[in-house]
């Protein structure tokens, strides 16, 4: 056991650090670090830069642009990209649909989709959740019937993040209603321009428009757009859920946020001193840092433990990353509100929901403080709520 990084590992870290901070425009990184929303064009721009340098999809198979990195390298990639404020590859493309197509798709699907997915020439969105399903994902009711050589899809999806920008959607559909619910689901790829698809924005309590409802009304999709086998879609979706363990905890992003909070607290006045001079604030900040440091070590232990294990089998310990990582992200929004104090009150979002302070009351960052607090409630709800994560640990680790 040697818990120090090797010189090679540190050199890799430095290389990543330098790349992200010199190649990705500072304007984009600053917006991310300040908690503001990016435009569609900014997200595309940075992904194409990453892809040009072979750094958009390191988790993919090498033949499709992936990297054969060690767990520590994958850790440093994720950590540094987040620390630098680089949004990184759009998760739907790089962590979700890409790996599934690479693993289970036909050769034709791979050729058609993977390069375009890596370069964000195709913007994907996810069609999994349905109204009323919640954590019971497998209970989905959107159905696809094979009629005249075409899948005909009817139903409704919801919580489709950034669906308003998407070119394609990957949809879980019920293709056999007469078997156990997990066994009658297929994984289908669908062009968002297909007639019968309607996207309706969901306005969230932070004032933003991040998620959507997607309605399918007799949407006709070519038969070959199914990934892998009919009725095996649930397996592919589960493969995907356990695929990306290094990003889930958002350790790097949380470190970047804490660094920024520390800077802001050193500036923001409180009485005759600064917020950072208040011992109680500092202790609250330190407590979050301590939990984050522990989580970072937990993450390193979990990725080290992956060595030699089959891919696609999620380590149930990664539920810790999800639970604790989301708690920490939420605590961080509390800290930002503490720094902002009474200046959180104005609802100061611009039309694009950029989180800029348009009222001019209080410091610039304060405008995004309360919306971030409201918005981050989602991280303990989506992607398997923290209650579901506890169920997983109870069953898979504690053996209840």
């Amino acid at each position, binding site marked *: 056991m040697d818990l120090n990084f090797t010189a090679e590992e540190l050199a890799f870290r430095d290389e990543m650090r330098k790349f992200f901070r010199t190649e990705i425009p500072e304007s984009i990184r600053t917006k991310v670090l300040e908690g503001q929303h990016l435009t569609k064009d900014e997200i595309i721009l940075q992904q194409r830069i990453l892809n040009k340098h072979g750094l958009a999809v390191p988790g993919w198979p090498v033949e499709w642009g992936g990297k054969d990195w060690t767990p520590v390298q994958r850790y440093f990639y994720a950590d540094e990209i987040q620390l630098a404020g680089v949004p990184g590859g759009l998760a739907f493309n790089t962590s979700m649909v890409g790996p599934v197509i690479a693993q289970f798709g036909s050769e034709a699907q791979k050729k058609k989709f993977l390069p375009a997915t890596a370069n964000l020439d195709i913007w994907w969105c996810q069609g999994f959740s349905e109204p009323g399903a919640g954590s019971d994902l497998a209970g989905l009711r959107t159905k696809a019937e094979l009629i005249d050589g075409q899948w005909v899809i009817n139903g409704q999806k919801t919580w489709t993040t950034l669906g308003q920008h998407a070119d394609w959607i990957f949809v879980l559909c019920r293709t056999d209603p007469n078997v156990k619910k997990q066994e009658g689901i297929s994984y289908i790829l669908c062009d968002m321009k297909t007639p019968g698809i309607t996207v309706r924005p969901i306005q969230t*309590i932070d004032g933003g428009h991040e998620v959507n409802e997607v309605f399918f009304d007799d949407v006709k999709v070519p038969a070959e757009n199914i990934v892998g086998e009919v009725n095996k879609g649930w397996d592919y979706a589960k493969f995907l859920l356990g695929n990306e363990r290094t990003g889930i905890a958002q350790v790097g992003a949380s470190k970047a946020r804490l660094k920024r909070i520390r800077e802001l607290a050193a500036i923001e006045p409180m009485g005759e001193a600064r917020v950072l001079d208040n011992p*109680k*604030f500092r202790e609250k900040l330190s407590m979050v840092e301590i939990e984050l440091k522990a989580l970072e070590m937990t993450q390193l232990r979990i990725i080290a433990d992956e060595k030699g294990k089959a891919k696609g089998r999620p380590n149930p310990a990664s539920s810790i990353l999800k639970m604790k990582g989301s708690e920490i992200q939420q605590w961080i929004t509390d800290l930002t509100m503490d720094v902002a104090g*009474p200046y*959180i009150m104005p*609802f100061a979002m611009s039309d694009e929901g950029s989180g800029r302070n348009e009222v001019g009351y209080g410091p610039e960052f304060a405008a995004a403080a309360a919306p971030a607090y409201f918005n981050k409630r989602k991280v*303990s*709800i989506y992607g398997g709520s923290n*209650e579901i994560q506890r169920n997983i640990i109870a069953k898979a680790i504690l053996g209840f």
Partner: protein
Amino acid sequence: MDFDLTDDQRLLKDSVDRLIADRYSFDQRKKYMAEKDGWSRDNWAQFAELGLLGVSFDEAYGGFGGGPVESMLVAEAFGRGLVLEPFFATVVLGGGLIKRAGTDAQKMAMLSEIAAGTRLVAFAHVERASRYNLADVQVTATKSGDGWVLNGEKSVVMHGDCADTILVTARTAGSRRDRNGIGLFVVDAKAEGLTRKGYPTQDGLRAAEISFANVRAADVLGDPAGALPIVERVIDEAIAVLCSEAVGLMHEMHVTTVDYMKQRKQFGRAISEFQVLQHRSVDMFVALEQARSINMFGTVMAGDDDAKSRSRAVSATKVQIGKSGKLIGEEAVQLHGGIAMTMEYKVGHYFKRMTMIEALYGSTADHLAKVADSGSLFA
């Protein structure tokens, strides 16, 4: 000690409860928010007719003659309804200041109009740099002839955009954070040199930034250098009213969550059958009852003449309200799941209002520090 309502209190409670039931469904509220001021003038007239706008004023000034308990009843119901109208700004802050600092003539002139619903008042006190320090006043008032001229800027003036009259604290003497040297001025919202920029707050209510460029005050309330103790007292009373509103918010969040749990099915059964969710909603309930209990203490104590014990009790109340409110708000969202994150569902709006109340007039942490510095609650 008697927890039963008097007949008059019961009547008041019934009428405000009925008002909320009739006029403040979630859908009706959306409509009011879309009106010009961001709230309903029609509701305001109705409030006046029911006597709510003078609930805490003497009958001599057209009021209902109620005390802290009456204000609590109204505020709690308004919390349950998530009421948008400027009751807090006009009646609690504006009316409170006039009541505590005004002469009989001033009260006669202004309180009766507030009670009648014909005068909207806002209180411009907070400044960009003051954070939670009530003595940190940089707006100036200088003597000019037999009146006063104001200069400077005030921030987050609640419902300052629609007010007819603005009560403004300004420094007449001393330096920035001195406790002495602060006066309380009555300013006509249309006065020359006054500009205001209205905006929504996170909770869907309204506020304004107001700047004063040689604005002539219409009047002054009390000692032009000694307003701070009255401001502190009225803010203590206002915090108690906010806490009562918060109890209404928490109650509604809790009830809505319990109802939702009974209806919402997951994995083939109502989620209310999951013991984990049951216990968490029980913890919300306990937090709610603790909040409701201490709010009664805070309500009574807000009327205490002794500044120290009044302020300690009000701060203690705000701490428990803040602690309970955060737990209840966050758990209400978590137990609902995604739906509570949407503008179309009511729980998120309660959660946002709760969050703003936590930040208003000092956060939980600030008030805990105040309590800790002022000795035992059981003295």
